[in-house]
């Protein structure tokens, strides 16, 4: 697999949009066999990437507040606070 095929998209939304584009190219028969295989490879990578996104468990909620110097600071939320 080429390296270019492994660059993760910026967001889930972008990944889906790229997948749609790949599908319309392959389904429309617009590209030759070699290119469509490369696109297929990219497509499976994107799907795997998306599955990984959905599988990730952030769970931890962060509390944002204004720090004394006016910047933004974060701290994890404790269990009691959450419930």
């Amino acid at each position: 697999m080429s390296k270019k095929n492994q660059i993760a998209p910026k967001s889930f939304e972008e990944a889906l949009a790229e997948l749609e584009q790949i599908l319309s190219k392959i389904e429309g028969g617009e590209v030759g066999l070699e290119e469509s295989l490369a696109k297929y490879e990219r497509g499976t990578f994107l799907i795997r990437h998306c599955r990984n996104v959905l599988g990730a468990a952030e769970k931890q909620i962060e509390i944002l507040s204004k720090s004394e110097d006016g910047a933004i600071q974060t701290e994890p939320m404790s269990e009691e606070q959450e419930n």
Partner: protein
Amino acid sequence: MADSFFDFHERVAKQRASLRSPKPATGGADEGVEPLTVTQLTAAIEKAIKSGVPGTITVRGEVSNASGRQASGHLYFTLKDSSACINCAMWRDAASRLQFKLEDGLEMIATGRVSVYAPQGRYQLQVQSLQPAGRGALELAFRQLQAKLAAEGLFAAERKKAIPLYPSRIVLLTSRATAALQDILKVLRRFPWIKLMLYHVPVQGQGSAPQIAQAIAHLNRHKTDIGGVDLIVLSRGGGSLEDLWSFNEEIVARAIAASRIPIVTGIGHEVDCTISDLVADYHAHTPTEAAQVITRNWGRAGDALVQLTTRLDRAIRQNILDARQRLTAAERHEFLRRPLDRIQMFRQLLDERQKSATLALRGRLRNAQHRLTAVAPRLLIAAQSSLKIRSARLDAFDRQLQALSPQAVLNRGYTITSIKKTGQILRSSTAAKIGDRLLTRFADGETESIVQDSRQMSLFE
């Protein structure tokens, strides 16, 4: 004339003297008339008002000449009805508690007391509180702000930002203590991959509105410091109109409008609609609905991925199948098997082209001939008829000519005589001399003769 000014003056002086003290006033022996100072008179008027008008009164009237807040924070206006008006003043503390903007034409119930403003000789109503007649103060404030922001276009659909389909970094802007937070977390728990951040702000009470507004601006300024923010959810649980009031404050509305991060609101219950809701990019009716709306696509993402996988597999399989079929077809193609045939075919094609070109040329020639043949007889006829016309005209000329010919004259019995030697035709008897040989021409021949004698005929002989 009993009531002349001087009589009146005297009577008043007497009354005053008896009012004040039995003793005559200093300086004036019997008369006891001493003019009041303006201050004294004003004090007397003030005293009269205080004794005649209750200390605290409520009065209803229409606002006019509203000044707007002065630099001092005081508010001046006039209350009027159809036949009277009274100046009103509202001191800074009372004025700052007003939630709506005092505008001319509003029907108000004012509570306060009447006081005299001695420096300008005016009495006025010192207003402690103002209540719009017929409706609540908050309702009025809401309508005023709504009208103002609507006129500025802050609620227009075209200035609303799109809500991301798959927001993965969400800031919940609410109070840690509010039920709204629990409602939202309950929905979002099913999407553990979404990064949640809580920005705590008081959602009711004095000072809550500026804090909400500051938090929105703060998030916009520093969003990259916390890895980016896709969406802000501004929410609060249900409550009275007063409880929700922070969300109807102009400062919050303007902060929402200025935010570059899309904002979804979920404030109060279904029936509540705040100014913040109207300005927000999406207005969910409750905190729970807000959470549902922003995760709508996430809920279907798993299914969508399954479908996309199936489509991708099917598409690539079809592509491979197509490629294989094309290959087979190419292998079977005649050109690949017998390349010379192809050249022959081209040659044949060329021949055919040539043939058809020749045929076409020939066709054009034949066509021209046809047209000529068609034209020839018509030409002939035209020529013939033209000849006929001409020969007829020639005959006519011939007849005319013949009529004039000397032969015709000879035929009628005349003769023509000419001198033989010169050929000169004789038109006079004097033209021929004796001895001249003459030729006389008849219709059928000539005779020759010699002149023997010549005489001239006299006309009158």
